């Protein structure tokens, strides 16, 4: 008990130095936590993706379309439970800074395949019934203060012109991992409008979403779909939704790696700062340790004192940093909602924070402990006075 009392009092004896070190650790943990959360957010789409959903796109590139006629052929394949389809619309709201994901989809099947988009039965019914209707995620609607019945105009970037939609439903995510910033409207509305302008571009879809009867059939069904359209004018590439989303992440793999590296560099820097603090502290206390050894305390007690003090400082900084991470992440997530629709500090990040703090605390204490233990009592006592 006395050893614990000494180590706690030692940790806060030099208030300015301990305070600044704790602040440094807190900022580092905050930076580490935010960077890890950015990485988690990057992968949020992958994590939220279902293994029982497949995405079929044009084998050449996602920018090329597939004929609508594939819908029926896919639906008839064994293992296919339901098929839906859609296009990336790429519209902007008022001006380009108001960017959010917007798709046209076949509404009935799409909402069946995506049960995580929770709509009331009345809203669902209203959306399906209204060809110019759309549904928006809760966060998106809140951001632009849209209410049910509001007319919203998107400016088409791929499909030129102003497109008017009526808000028929605001979906909520089934859980925290569901993106609530998306905008869905009827594929038919887009298709019919295109038909009037250029009939060649009509009846084309950007992707098919396929729900399989059992997740273990996913690979088999994917092969069957691609085989069906082999040697056609528009060959397909079918993969699980997870793999499809991962493909997108892979395009920005270098950025993710850079963020990961920066997050670890932050930890290494703060490790050096804490090691320096502990070295200074131990040098100052070498006399105290010599006195304790004189009185009969052993190397084990000295080790507990130095490691304990180091860990008290790093864990206090870590706890402060973790507490600060939540409001910082909320502000960061709000400011960059469009890019990171799911910006949640994960439990894994908190574990990593604590692990990093323990690692820093222990590594910073190793050399000072070695010095304190190795120094002879007589030499240590000579440093006093």
């Amino acid at each position, binding site marked *: 008990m006395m050893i614990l009392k000494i180590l706690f009092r030692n940790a806060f004896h030099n208030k300015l130095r301990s305070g600044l070190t704790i602040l440094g650790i807190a900022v580092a943990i905050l930076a580490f936590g935010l960077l890890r959360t950015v990485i988690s957010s990057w992968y949020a789409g992958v994590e939220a993706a279902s293994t029982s959903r497949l995405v079929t796109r044009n084998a050449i590139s996602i920018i090329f379309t597939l004929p609508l006629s594939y819908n029926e052929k896919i639906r008839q394949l064994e293992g296919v439970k339901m098929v839906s389809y859609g296009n990336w619309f790429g519209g902007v709201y008022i001006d380009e800074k108001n960017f959010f994901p917007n798709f046209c989809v076949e509404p009935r099947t799409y909402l069946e395949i995506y049960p995580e988009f929770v709509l009331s039965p009345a809203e669902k019914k209203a959306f399906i019934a209204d060809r110019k209707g759309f549904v928006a995620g809760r966060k998106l609607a809140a951001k632009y203060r849209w209410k049910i019945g509001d007319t919203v105009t998107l400016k088409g970037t791929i499909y030129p012109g102003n497109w008017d939609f009526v808000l028929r439903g605001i979906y909520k995510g089934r859980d925290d991992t569901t993106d609530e910033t998306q905008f869905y409207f009827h594929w038919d509305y887009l298709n019919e409008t295109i038909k009037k302008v250029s009939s060649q571009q009509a009846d084309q879809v950007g992707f098919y979403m396929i729900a399989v009867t059992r997740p273990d059939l996913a690979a088999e069904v994917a092969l069957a779909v691609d085989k069906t359209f082999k040697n056609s004018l528009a060959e397909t590439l079918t993969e699980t939704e997870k793999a499809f989303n991962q493909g997108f992440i892979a395009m920005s793999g270098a950025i993710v790696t850079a963020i990961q590296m920066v997050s670890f560099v932050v930890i290494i820097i703060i490790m050096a700062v804490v090691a320096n603090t502990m070295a200074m502290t131990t040098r100052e206390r070498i006399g105290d340790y010599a006195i304790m050894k004189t009185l*009969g305390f*052993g190397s084990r007690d000295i080790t507990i004192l130095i490691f304990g003090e180091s860990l008290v400082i790093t864990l206090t900084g870590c706890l402060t940093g973790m507490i600060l991470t939540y409001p910082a992440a909320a502000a960061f997530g709000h400011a960059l909602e469009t890019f990171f629709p799911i910006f949640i500090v994960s439990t894994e990040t908190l574990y990593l924070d604590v692990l990093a703090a323990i690692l820093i605390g222990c590594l910073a204490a190793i050399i000072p402990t070695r010095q304190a233990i190795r120094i002879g009592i007589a030499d240590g006592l000579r440093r006093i006075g």
Partner: protein
Amino acid sequence: MDEQKQNIVEIRHLFKSYHRGSLVVPVLFDITFNIAAGEFLALMGPSGSGKTTLLNLLAGIDKADEGSIRVGDMDITTLTETELAHWRANHVGFIFQFYNLIPVLKAIENVELPLHLTSLSKRERREHAEMALRMVGLDHRMDHYPQELSGGEQQRVAIARAIVTDPTILVADEPTGDLDRVSAEEILAMMERLNGEMGKTIIMVTHDPRAAQRAKILRHLDKGYLTDDDSQNPL
């Protein structure tokens, strides 16, 4: 045989040198002498004569190159570091020139500190520490931190810490070296009382003749050699 029983410390042919890189600096040469139980011995000598080194050796905080040091029934030169630490905790009370109190502990906690290495209960530790502080007249300042006490008071706390375990010997290295004259007199009077009334064996290193005057036996060291035989204090 009787005479041997009365000796609490027996030092035989003690040699000690320090290593400064490749340089070997001899400090003590063939030191042999005894200290009787209940004695108050002052070790005097000029700076660098080896007084503190000799004190450190017989208190078990440094190791001799050659020779033996028997304290009570134990030849401490044969003990390992861990055994020595245990032995020190039970048999030696330390009083230093700069008091050497732990700055983050209150006076009472400083005195209690060595008792944490014993099997005493928390209540017993507190009672012993309070009693020791009462003996040095500082029971009213037990909740003060060292920096809130004067030099003389800090040294009295250090004395309380030294006697709280009822050690076999008390070693004091320049106990009045950092004190004003009045405080120094108080501390020396206290040590005299510990020796005279409580029968504590005290070995004190000093180069202050006034401090040495309080001891019963005076030994001189010069350049690592004992320069006189056992004798009563001529001062």
